């Protein structure tokens, strides 16, 4: 039995070592030791960044222009800068209502996906039963069921459940359709938690569930943040389900709002661009904060 203890000690030790290791994804942080790269690296990276960001910047900067500026010179810079578009969008209640709706739907979906996927992934990853393999096959097959395919019967189903025009009606299916990807990412992650930790926990009188709560949850942090962000972003951007389900404009999420706004203010391209820019901010912020964790989380998932 000393052997097991030794193993745990060593694993924990390596765990710590790992965190210090520069090569390790979780240890990725600003460090005084990071060198400056070769100029070629910067030139190439800059080029890449420009390609990715310029179209988005076009939308954001377009919001600072007037319509006549846009018509006269479609590719120009704001001159002079015009802040009215953004001010009027921020001052409108429509934007805030839709923002809150989107937040409710996205956070609801995120929490649901994380909780349910963690539970199932734990079963798949840590229980030695034929059942767990069946589970994995069932859920990974779910990757092939696009929400697009199921949309019509899904609509009819939700209608029978009286979930039309409600946020819950969007959250529940989104959780269900978000599970497969989340499970595929989480399972390898949970599998990589050393068996020895679990054995030790058992010796300490911890049940499997206790082990789940005390060891698995903290250790699967990067994997959990990855699926949390991915499901949040997916839900934030979702278009088709809300399009089919929501008729009441006070329930609209932002993507529908963007569409509605652009048809209501169809002449006012600049204001549409302002509205559009503001609607992407929350997802961008959310992603920027957790970007490092995502790399770590995916690294855990793909190394299997």
């Amino acid at each position, binding site marked *: 039995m000393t052997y097991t203890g030794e193993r745990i000690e060593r694993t924990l030790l390596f765990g710590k070592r790992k965190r210090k290791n520069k090569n390790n994804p979780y240890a990725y942080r600003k460090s005084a030791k990071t060198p400056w790269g070769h100029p070629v690296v910067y030139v190439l990276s800059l080029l890449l960044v420009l390609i990715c960001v310029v179209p988005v910047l076009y939308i954001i900067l377009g919001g600072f222009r007037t319509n006549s500026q846009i018509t006269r010179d479609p590719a120009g810079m704001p001159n002079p800068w015009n802040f009215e578009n953004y001010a009027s969008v921020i001052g409108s209640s429509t934007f805030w209502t839709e923002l809150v709706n989107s937040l409710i739907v996205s956070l609801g979906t995120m929490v649901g996906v994380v909780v349910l996927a963690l539970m199932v992934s734990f079963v798949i990853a840590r229980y030695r039963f034929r059942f767990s393999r069946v589970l994995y096959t069932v859920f990974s097959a779910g990757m092939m069921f696009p929400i697009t395919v199921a949309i019509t019967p899904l*609509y009819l189903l939700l209608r029978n459940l*009286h979930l*039309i025009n409600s946020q819950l009606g969007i959250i529940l299916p989104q959780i269900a359709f978000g599970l497969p990807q989340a499970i595929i990412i989480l399972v390898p992650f949970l599998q990589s938690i050393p068996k020895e930790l679990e054995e030790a926990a058992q010796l300490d009188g911890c049940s499997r569930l206790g082990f789940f709560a005390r060891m698995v949850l903290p250790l699967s942090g990067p994997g959990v943040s990855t699926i949390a962000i991915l499901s949040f972003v997916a839900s934030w951007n979702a278009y088709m389900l809300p399009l089919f389900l929501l*008729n009441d404009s006070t329930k609209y999420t932002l993507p529908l709002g963007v569409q509605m706004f652009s*048809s209501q203010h169809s*002449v006012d391209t600049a204001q549409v661009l302002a509205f559009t820019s503001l609607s992407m901010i929350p997802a961008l912020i959310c992603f920027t904060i957790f970007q490092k964790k995502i790399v770590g989380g995916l690294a855990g998932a793909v190394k299997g």
Partner: protein
Amino acid sequence: MRVKSVFAAVVAAATVVGVSACGGGSGTNADGKTEVVVWMNSTTGDGKKFWDDAAAAFEAKHQNVDIKIEAIQNEDMDGKLQTALQDPSSAPDMFLARGGQKLRDVVEAGQVMDLTDKISDQVKTQMKTALDTTTVDGKVYGVPQSVLPGGIWYSKDLFKKAGINETPKTWDEFADAVKKLKDAGITPIALGGKDAWPAAHWYYWFALRECSQSAFDEASSDLKFTNECWVKAGDDVKNLIDLDGFNDGFLTTSAQQGASSSAGLLANHMAAMELMGGWEPGVVRDLTPDKKDMADLGYFAFPEMEGGEGDPTAILAGADSMSIGAWAPQEAVDFLNFISEKEWQEKYAEAFVTIPAAKNAQSAVKNEALQQVLKVYDQASSVSLWLDTVFGQNVGNALNEGVVNMMAGKGNADDIVKGIEAAASKG
């Protein structure tokens, strides 16, 4: 079989119970007021204001009613309505309907209220002709708010600039006008091909001119396009394309959304004319830079086709009508009769810059182009609905797409007919 029907009955009963338990779109709201949900397609400007005002005026008279106006973007309307109508609890009590097969579909599904005995005398007498569009098998299922005859809308200034002094009456004159406009560096025709129907309208008109009245009506009812006039109409579309008069990128230009839409091009003098229905002055007004009426907007009837068998005065028109859901409360019918009164019809005409359905309100039409339209409308030998409305969504969409395909250089007149037949087999 017995088991099946018993099962169906149980499901139906359960649905009814579920729906009534839930309350749903109609019914009573928290203040104890009867709620009437209205879906219309004016998302902006005076049109939206008209509905809000009408609702407020009705509510002032009827304290116990709460009219909820919801604006749905026109291109989304058919799809949204279609899904919403399947469920009375999410469906509107009163909604925009345009007659034809589309109305027949919902009538057959038992989702629309029979209004034959419920409409007011005003509606019965003053809207008599327009009521044809919403009558199915002798029963009235909707009340028209406006009649929308089609034709060509143009900018008088741009025509003058190109040296065109008289509006074209025949196809040759029309082709000549297009050439003059092009020579003057003006885009002759605006076309919103992205929404498909604006392109298809050209085909409808050509068919109306090429086909005899009987051939046209026959095909409308039995969906067989064997008469060669339908192919001839396709050839006319080909000739039209050969004039090369459309705006750049017309395939991805939308009809009404934004300054770069086809209506926007006309409104901003970036194109000289557009083939459209009677809603055009109102749509164009919202798209001019100052959102005021387009001062030089003119109208002329669709040109005569040489050798065509159709009557040159025949016209195509639409009607924007409101129908009532089968589940709606009496108050919804009252509101519909209310807005059909002369006073509100006049306000409607003003707000939408269009021709009201009620004869006694038509004197309120002040817009010069619309007065021209009224003249053409009154002299028309026959008034037919848009073909896509007549055929319903399924076949109508296929027809529209066939025309768009042809305009993009894919396929010919035969393919349009083939597409229609293929679509008929899908529904």
